[in-house]
């Protein structure tokens, strides 16, 4: 059951801007990004590489280079509490605590020299000091993501696991601290379709059972249509279109969204040529 939505959104992002500076050049990676996320809701952020979708998600907890190479403005409110300008030690508790992340390539986000169990245990020890039996908690979290032999996997190193298993371990780590919001940055891009389905089914179940909100960054419209409640389309650092998923999948008001959906080959609808983005819609590269 979804929890009853309160008037106050769980996450409220307003006018978020991220600027990177190298030498005397400034690059605006995200500009005027605003959205709201209710408890239990799934927001999909879609866009191409370089559209600012990952950067704006990382900016939620300032997981970015320090000033002056990167400057951040705007407001991020978690349950009414402003996160921008919060001191680093407070923010560190929120990262991985209330807001947890999983990334695209599980192989590179896990530390290769520690066992899976150690890495999950580390997160538990840091964010939930009240937990006495960390080992039991690690095993429980691995079992929750449908890893069949959690005791064995806890003692394995990342390289001993397949991509799908590594991503499960990442999810277990993210969930071990009972986050309110899970930011999943292209969680299945590196995986096969059958494994992708398993991972997405798993995330859907965890969301249902825990009432957890998910910010899902992806460029797969199939996943969005089946999984998200709301969609925000990013282009050149800004959200150009957003709304409920049914609406955006049916009628796209921004030409970029339209073009992006048109260039995807679909099963059973063979065309002679794929549609490509027109020059004015292409992100300059």
């Amino acid at each position, binding site marked *: 059951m979804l929890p009853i939505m309160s008037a106050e959104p769980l996450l409220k992002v307003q006018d978020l801007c991220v600027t990177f500076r190298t030498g005397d050049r400034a690059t605006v990676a995200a500009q005027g990004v605003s959205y709201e996320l209710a408890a239990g809701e799934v927001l999909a952020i879609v866009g191409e*590489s370089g559209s600012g979708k990952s950067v704006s998600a990382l900016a939620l907890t300032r997981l970015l280079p320090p000033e002056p190479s990167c400057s951040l403005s705007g407001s991020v409110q978690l349950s009414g509490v402003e996160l921008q300008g919060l001191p680093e030690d407070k923010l560190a508790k929120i990262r991985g605590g209330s807001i947890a992340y999983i990334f695209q390539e599980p192989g590179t986000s896990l530390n290769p020299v520690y066992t899976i169990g150690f890495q999950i245990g580390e997160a538990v020890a840091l964010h939930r000091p009240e937990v006495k039996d960390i080992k039991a908690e690690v095993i429980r979290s691995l079992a929750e993501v449908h890893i069949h032999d959690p005791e064995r996997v806890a003692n394995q190193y990342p390289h001993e696991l397949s991509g799908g298993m590594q991503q499960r371990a990442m999810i277990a780590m993210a969930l071990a601290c009972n986050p309110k919001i899970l930011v999943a940055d292209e969680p299945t891009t590196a995986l*096969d379709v*059958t494994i992708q389905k398993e991972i997405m089914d798993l995330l859907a179940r965890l969301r249902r059972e825990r009432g957890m909100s998910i910010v899902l960054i992806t460029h797969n419209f199939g996943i969005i249509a089946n999984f998200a409640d709301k969609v925000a389309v990013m282009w050149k650092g800004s959200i150009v279109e957003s709304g409920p998923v049914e609406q955006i999948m049916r009628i796209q008001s921004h030409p970029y969204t339209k*073009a992006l959906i048109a260039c995807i080959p679909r099963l059973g609808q063979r065309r002679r040529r794929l549609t490509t983005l027109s020059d004015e819609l292409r992100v300059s590269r």
Partner: protein
Amino acid sequence: MSDNLLEVSDLSVHYPGRANWFFQKAEPKKAVDGISFVVPKGKTVGLVGESGSGKTTTGRAIVKLAPLTAGKILYQGVDIGILSNSAFLPWRKKIQMIFQDPYNSLNPRADILSILSEPLEIHFPQMTREDREVRCAELLRSVQLPAEHLRRFPHEFSGGQRQRIGIARALAVQPELIICDEPVSALDVSVQAEVVNLLQDLQEQFGLTYLFVAHDLAVVEHVSDHILVMSKGRIVEQGTPSEILGNPQHDYTKTLLAAVPRF
């Protein structure tokens, strides 16, 4: 001679398993286990399957990047599977490969001119430096990149542009067959569409034959004349795209199709 450019029969690639504590010989790992298929000239054969199904190994075995355990690889009637590496050289010119990861398949320390020149130096030793430079500029244009980019280095390009450079490198030696190993999996959907269209244009222009290895069924359906479905080292089903997608016979194909999120 038949219309088949490539005829593969009973191809197997086995890797030795790790011996156990008692030094007993372990079961070999059967990456590819007795597969047979043909690739007709001028057509595209799609090869789909999960990671670990042996699809990449199959492609690599054809160009001798994976050791052959058994089977025959006939290229226009000649068994290229038994050739030594040096005897295989003339066929390397005919069979080229495009790799999945455009970030790792280009030498970061070489500029585009040297990346594209290298295959020319090997296969066209009579070419002068000037000839090569002219040819490289022409290659860049054929993959829709400006010829001025010859002096740039791989890190200056986006993923899609790098994949175009990888394609230009494969085209340099005027191949007949190109093995495309997941050429668009690492790309954004919009860039993916551009690269797929480019591959199809080049096929028409140069009469190329493709073995297109990928895990994205929609892309494979779009480009292929014939599809092979691989699972656990074997081909479990093959047919035209409409047969495979419209009426899948094997359970694995059905699972694969069911896993694709539709919209």
